[in-house]
């Protein structure tokens, strides 16, 4: 039986969420139609919106459903930027954490290349937490030019939680966006308490279906849309409302949030067990981004003298699914920008992989990895040694 340790990429749908999706999928009615079918669909969507809002500490009107976390991030990033330069062309500076997900980094880089944005990257301390001093300095010196600040709530590759409340405090009236796709449903997340302007939540990271996510956008805030059409979601996001997926998202979020404390403790224990087993099998393995506050299920490990693609291949052969941060469109593993941001060399980054645990992970899974990892790393080291790069 294969062992799935890539829950940060996507995690199995909760059976209750799958049930909601199946039963809703066969119902008819466009949620924007005025007839009884439409009203019924809309009712379900609004209940789901209220449920997700309550779980995330937001008001229902602050929930804008999108088709992916990437879309929600693009909507926030481009929307805030366009609105900012429309009001004041000099307000074109974007401040982002250097280890953001590509769904933030790529749109801000696109804005820099095509729309005149000026980027400031917040450095990351070796423990995987943003450098607040840098943020303080950049805000102090460039306050009137900053369009918005984006700092992820937790990092998807190393799991470290970020000091978002402090970011908001430093930002003052500058909009702050936080990508919370890895956090929501796993650790405490409260939109109102954090005081951010916007946040991205994702369904499939917490046991809901793929293809649905949400942007939380504070009351009174307006964004330039990226999709123009019927204006179904607060006139900011167009597209027929995906009622079945939204309902299934709400089902999953409700269960995940209710069980988050219990899951946290159980998954964290498994993660620590995996860490201990790897450390005892391979004393020179190092663990990345171990700050005080972390997601429970992410373990990022550097195995000196290996390459991640060999490690992944050998683990795959052994029936163990792990991953690195990202691959390019052709499928080539890249050295992780996250790991390099916390101070690893390119070679160290290339010899690192991520295990991410989830609600279906068992102690048996972890013990099997513990038994296998020594031989896998040994073979990967042999493969590295013969490489030209070695």
């Amino acid at each position, binding site marked *: 039986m294969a062992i799935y340790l890539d829950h940060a990429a996507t995690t199995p749908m909760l059976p209750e969420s799958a049930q909601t999706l199946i039963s809703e999928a066969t119902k008819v009615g466009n949620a924007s139609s005025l007839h009884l079918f439409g009203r019924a669909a809309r009712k379900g969507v609004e209940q789901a919106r209220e449920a997700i809002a309550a779980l995330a500490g937001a008001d229902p009107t602050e929930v804008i459903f999108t088709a992916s976390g990437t879309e929600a991030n693009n909507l926030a990033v481009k929307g805030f930027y366009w609105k900012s330069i429309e009001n004041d062309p000099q307000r074109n500076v974007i401040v982002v954490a250097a280890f953001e997900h590509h769904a933030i980094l790529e749109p801000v880089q696109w804005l820099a290349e095509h729309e005149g944005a000026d980027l400031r990257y917040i450095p990351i301390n070796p423990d995987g937490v943003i450098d607040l001093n840098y943020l303080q300095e950049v805000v102090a010196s460039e306050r009137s030019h900053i369009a918005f600040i984006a700092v992820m709530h937790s990092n998807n590759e190393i799991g470290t939680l970020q000091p978002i409340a402090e970011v908001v405090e430093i930002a003052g009236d500058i909009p702050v966006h936080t990508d919370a796709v890895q956090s929501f449903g796993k650790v405490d997340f409260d939109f109102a308490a954090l005081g951010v302007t916007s946040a991205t939540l994702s369904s499939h990271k917490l046991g809901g279906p793929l293809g649905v996510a949400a942007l939380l956008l504070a009351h009174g805030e307006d964004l330039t849309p990226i999709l123009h059409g019927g204006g179904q979601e607060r006139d900011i996001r167009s597209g027929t409302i995906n009622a079945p997926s939204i309902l299934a998202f709400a089902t999953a979020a409700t269960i995940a949030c209710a069980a988050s404390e219990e899951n946290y403790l159980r998954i964290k224990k498994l993660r620590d067990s995996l860490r201990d087993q790897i450390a005892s099998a391979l004393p020179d393995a190092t663990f990345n981004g171990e700050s005080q506050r972390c997601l429970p299920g992410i373990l990022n490990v550097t195995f000196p003298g290996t390459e991640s693609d060999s490690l992944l291949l050998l683990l795959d052969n052994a029936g163990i699914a792990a991953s690195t941060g990202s691959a390019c469109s*052709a499928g080539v593993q890249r050295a992780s920008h996250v790991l390099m941001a916390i101070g690893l060399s390119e070679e160290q980054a290339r010899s690192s992989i991520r295990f991410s645990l989830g609600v279906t992970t068992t102690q048996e899974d972890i013990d099997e990895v513990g038994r296998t990892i020594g031989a896998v790393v040994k*073979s990967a080291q042999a493969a590295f040694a*013969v490489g*030209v790069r070695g």
Partner: protein
Amino acid sequence: MSGGVDSAVAAARAVDAGHDVIGVHLALSSNPQKYRSGARGCCTIEDSHDARRAADVIGIPFYIWDMAEEFHEGVVENFIEEYAQGRTPNPCLRCNEKIKFQAVLDRAAALGYDAVATGHYAQMKIDENGVRSMYRAVDPLKDQSYVLAVLNEKQLAGAMFPLGDSHKVDVRKEAKARGLYVANKPDSHDICFIPSGNNAGWLRDRLGSESGPIVDQDGNTVGEHQGAYTYTIGQRRGLGLSVPTVDGSPRYVLKIEPKTNTVVVGAKADLAISRIVGEKPIWCGAMPEAGVDHRGFAQIRAHGAALPCSYVVTESSITATLDEPLLGLARGQGLVIYDGDRVVGSATVSDTE
């Protein structure tokens, strides 16, 4: 698995033969093109997709190995350097020697695999004494033993060519029968890392285009060239000569002298050579007895004719004397010696007479 039909069928046959097989696609460019253009290029995202889909159909795991750095250092830079030295290299030989059957084979071995199987058309035979030899493929039009003649005994021991006993037309039929949708994909030709197909322009971009004289054999300047290395021995077209010959006969490139940046031209008859000296020999099996005359065939191009010859070998050279003279051979090309259909070995052409 390049994404083409040959490697897909080779993989399927390896599975049928009972081996534990994984599919590997080599990413050879750090900046891959999105789509194939015509018959060129083997490093596009579309090709990696095709390879992945073939692996799905065959039912084997599929991985992409990033060999861009190794390929650039081992093949592309060597290609440029050879041209800069006035030689005409064959990068496919180099790729087989340094990448597919070295970097890939070594990594595979370290990861616990026994061999690299490719879609090349060549045959491997093992005699009763366990000696392994490589032979031409059954399909004379597709035979690729020439570009594999750079593999030494150890590399051959880790190589499998499941298509050597088949004709291409049958491989395509088999691909179709197996449900591989690459069955009708065009063959790739030319140099994969020069997707435009404009080798001269590509070289000019990298080596500059310092103009220099085109001279005849008496040393008279008869024209000007735009970078000596963009010419090849035996080339007739595109010389742009300003001084015609007395009798109006065409002139051909005889020699390229990178040190003086000079291209030498002359009559067709002056291209004729009958003695080829190759350096850095590689033996695809046991080295033939040194210092004595052997009979065999020389081949100097991937799909060139087998030229009857006598040859003598030393530890560091192969010297072939052709029965019939040959017109035009550039230094840097691969000289491959055959004993009938068996590949004896290869060397890099260093001198001709």
